[in-house]
């Protein structure tokens, strides 16, 4: 049980996907202007991440490792993720229209989100079992959401701040992210790795 807790906290805070591992920076900068969309994007990413994490975990163990085809990893994973995102989109549209309206517009953006392929590759390097994989994915997804929501909260306030012209937009967003990253580095050493 404590192992699962450490994996979760490790993925959520200590090795935060955005601020420490630098995965998913594009949506982090692109979709963090409003709090509401940030929450939607965060949830969509967490959902797809967990699904993709489990599927690629199974593929890695039962197909790639089993047949010694590790060199096909990149090709296989990216195709599976792309297909998965399409499938999720169709499924939600038909079966859970409420959720589709909330997450739908974010789904196409997720295929090229490096956080998804990133988590698949990270899982492949680790020796997690299925439950640990799920916990790791959920932790990482919520960590992404947390960073995105904090960023959106700050940027909403920043709209009214007198920022030098050259720094507006990406410049100040990156520097804000740097300060958040300093805060998150305080979590280092929180859990035994």
């Amino acid at each position, binding site marked *: 049980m404590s192992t699962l807790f450490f994996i979760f906290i490790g993925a959520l805070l200590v090795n935060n996907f955005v*601020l*420490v*591992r*630098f*995965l*998913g*920076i*594009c949506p982090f*900068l692109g979709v963090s202007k409003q709090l509401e969309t940030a929450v939607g994007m965060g949830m969509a990413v967490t959902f797809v991440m967990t699904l993709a994490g489990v599927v690629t975990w199974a593929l890695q163990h039962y197909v790639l490792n089993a047949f010694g085809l590790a*060199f*096909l*990893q*990149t*090709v296989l*994973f*990216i*195709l599976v993720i*792309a297909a998965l995102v399409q499938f999720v989109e169709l499924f939600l549209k038909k079966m859970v229209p409420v959720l589709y309206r909330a997450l739908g517009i974010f789904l196409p953006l997720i295929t*090229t*989100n*490096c956080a*998804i*392929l*990133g988590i698949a*590759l*990270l899982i492949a*390097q680790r020796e997690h079992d299925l439950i640990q994989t799920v916990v790791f994915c959920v932790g990482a997804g919520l960590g992404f959401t947390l960073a995105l929501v904090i960023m959106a909260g700050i940027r909403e306030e920043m709209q009214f701040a007198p920022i*030098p*012209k*050259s*720094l507006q937009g*990406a*410049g*100040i*967003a*990156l*520097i804000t*992210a*740097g*300060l958040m*990253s*300093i805060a998150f*580095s305080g979590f280092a050493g929180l859990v035994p790795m």
Partner: protein
Amino acid sequence: MVNLVKDFWNGVWDENTIFKLQIGMCPTLAVSTSAQNGLAMGLATTFVLVCSSALVSLVRKLVPNEVRIPVYVVIIATFVTVVDLFLKAAFPDIHAVLGIFIPLIVVNCVILARAEAFAGKMPVHRSAADALGFGIGFMIALVTLGSIREILGMGTWFGMRVMPAGYVPWSIMVLPPGAFITLGFVVAAVNLISRRSTATSRSS
């Protein structure tokens, strides 16, 4: 010929992926801890970009419109895996540092964006020039960032000592926060330069 130079320059400066468009940021932030890592990543990405753009342009008339994206993705992923294997065989140390960011070149939006927006419609030589420009522009950004972080964070440049002996390295520059803050200021500086140059060209 003029076209080719224009296609090339577009990616290097006018639409520089990092400085102007702010896409492909993940590898930029993650592997720019030193000038050498930035250069290696830049070269790997440029190789994939040029090869896949050229191939996409070659096969653009054979591929039905509905399945073009999956075909592009497979082409890109194949070249990425070739680079991954090559680095592992020839430069294991660099391969170890770049880690999962080599396979992640696949999802560098720049590559798919160039395939979709340019190579899928243009002849081979123009697609290659365009891809080379974007690749070099990306590499320049990575090496700039890596140099600043390495010089301030470790006192060295490409491994050679450049700061005086008494210099105490700012460790934070090679840690994650340093990546964000450095890139923030570099982007601001580039904004300033291009604003100045448009202002002067307008007034003259």
